[in-house]
């Protein structure tokens, strides 16, 4: 009798554990191993490091976006903020490496202000965040174009680009170690702590779950909203600084990144309209999307079909999440 109970208990614990495994992590491993089979260099330490480096900007954006999503909103302005960061960086530094740190500080200040405006419009003007951040997207893109006069030019100094580009060589065991991974780990660690380890994080979940209830429980809902949009904007500036090290200065570096970041979170099990999600899931979602893109490139599919694949996986992930919630509650 007790044996049977133990057995049942053990089984339910196993089911529980299985349930807690993030589906995105599993999907990611499947995608990555497929990529590795097609192109074995991906399975070498250097290949893994390079993959993580390329995934870093999206993972950082997702780490910021998840705060807004869990609070029940959307932040559509992050892609344009990435563009503004790259273009602003080239304008502020004007090829002078000594201005890099000052420029980065100014860019973070701009990001902070944009996030604060987004949050204030949602919290105090009660404008739905889709509209508020859409307006910000248009304005920030316009501002970036105005800043460079419509034609981005110049280069970024090397010490600006090192965050995305610099690689430590001759590291034992893994051979190469990109600086981008340090930034990625730092941002993800900070975001994990902020979302799952602080009172602020609990309040973000509370507001996303039921803003009225959170308010009655004493949460200053407006401050939480300001906070999540500022976090998302600061993450976007960070991703922008990373992407500046990847390619040249152009007006479309950030194009569509907001949707990819939301997609990454959703694939990682974050629930739209708030209240549910984990940082690990969001990062796993970002890695999954990056692996998917690598896979499609390896398969030789034309570039545009990446979008088709992204759309399909997005719908599939959310449909699966909805189905699972209906099944297990």
């Amino acid at each position: 009798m007790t044996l049977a109970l133990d057995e049942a208990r053990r089984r339910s614990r196993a089911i529980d554990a299985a349930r807690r495994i993030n589906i995105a992590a599993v999907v990611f491993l499947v995608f990555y191993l497929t990529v590795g089979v097609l192109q074995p260099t991906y399975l070498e330490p250097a290949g893994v490091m390079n993959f993580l480096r390329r995934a870093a900007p999206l993972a950082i954006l997702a780490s910021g976006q998840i705060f807004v999503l869990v609070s029940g909103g959307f932040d559509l302005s992050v892609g344009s903020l990435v563009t503004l960061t790259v273009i602003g960086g080239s304008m502020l530094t004007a090829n002078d490496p000594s201005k890099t740190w000052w420029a980065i500080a100014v860019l973070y200040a701009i990001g902070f202000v944009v996030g604060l405006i987004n949050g204030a419009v949602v919290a105090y003007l009660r404008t739905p965040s889709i509209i508020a951040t859409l307006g910000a997207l248009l304005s920030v893109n316009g501002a970036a174009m105005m800043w460079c006069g419509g034609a981005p030019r110049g280069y970024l100094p090397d010490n600006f680009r090192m965050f995305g580009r610099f690689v430590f060589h001759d590291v034992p065991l893994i051979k190469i170690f990109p600086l981008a991974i340090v930034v990625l780990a730092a941002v993800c660690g900070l975001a994990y702590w902020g979302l799952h380890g602080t009172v602020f994080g609990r309040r973000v979940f509370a507001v996303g779950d039921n803003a009225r209830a959170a308010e009655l429980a004493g949460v200053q809902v407006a401050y939480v909203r300001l906070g999540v949009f500022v976090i998302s904007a600061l993450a976007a500036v960070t991703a922008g600084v990373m992407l500046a090290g990847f390619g040249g200065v152009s007006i479309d570096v950030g194009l569509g990144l907001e949707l990819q970041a939301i997609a990454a979170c959703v694939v990682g099990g974050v629930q739209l309209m708030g209240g549910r999600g984990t940082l690990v899931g969001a990062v796993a979602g970002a890695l999954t999307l990056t692996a998917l893109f690598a896979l499609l490139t390896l398969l030789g599919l034309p570039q545009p079909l990446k979008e088709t694949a992204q759309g399909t996986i997005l719908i599939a992930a959310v449909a699966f999440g909805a189905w699972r919630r209906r099944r297990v509650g």
Partner: protein
Amino acid sequence: MSESQALVPAPAWRRGSAAPPLLLAGSILLYVGVAFWTGQTKMLETDGVIGLLERMVALGIVALGQTFAIIAGSIDLSVANMISVAAVLASFIMHGRADMMLAAVLVVLAVSALVGVVNGAIISRLKVNPFIATLGVGLILQGLLSASFTDFAGSVPREFQAVAYGSFGVVPYSVAALFVLAALASFVLWATRFGAHLYAVGGNAEGARLAGIRTDLVTTGAHVVCSLSAGVTGLYLASRLRSGAPWIGRDGVYDLESIAVVVIGGTLLAGGRGGVWGTLAGVLLFASLDAAFNMMGVSAYPKLVLRGAIVIAAVAVYTVRTRGHVA
């Protein structure tokens, strides 16, 4: 279905806000004011006003459909991509031949309706958030389109260009069509059972379902209307540009702008309240703004910055009085 009629809400105009008249007055004041201020009084003569109305057509038609989706408590982000698909498909099938016009139009309408059904099914059957569902469908459409066509494809025959360039006297066909479609849409919303069900589902989907309304069919119907309107916009743009290219919908930002004008027009983003005349007033505001910026010689980028700020301000005017929480 008689029990469901208890749920039919009061006509929209009775519950609507004073938004459309105010917006209308504001837009006209802006346009006329800027015309006088910059001394371009020629813009107030027939040609100028017709030009202003013509600016409304593309965004106006797709925004009418978007109004249906939003009133039903949904949203459609795939319209920009649907517009590109429709325009490319039309000009590719026609390939400059007048005898293919009817076939092309029918194919475009059929494809649009199908996309609407797919959107509605993903939302109501698979229970996917409409934001993600239509975003995903939009990405799928755009990917397939851009993989098949990289540039302007085919061309439309001269006869088809009449859609955009022909006119009854001084009134272009396209402007007349916009107002006829708006009248039709408002008739459907106010006077038909489908319209009443749209408001019911948008206002309280669970309540509507318990009252015996097939909410899944209503949601799907709203998306079919929305996709069809995007298809018609695509046909119009193909006629105006004389050909279709895979980027015209996205370049026009029709997805986000159509949502913006619907909300500016007083339709609740959460659904259940609103109407098409407010949407048209919102479209007129955008058209007047564009015309005013042009008259003042504002260059492209500051225009973009101002446009973003105006979208927020115009929506905030209503929402600032909201009592509840908004995310």
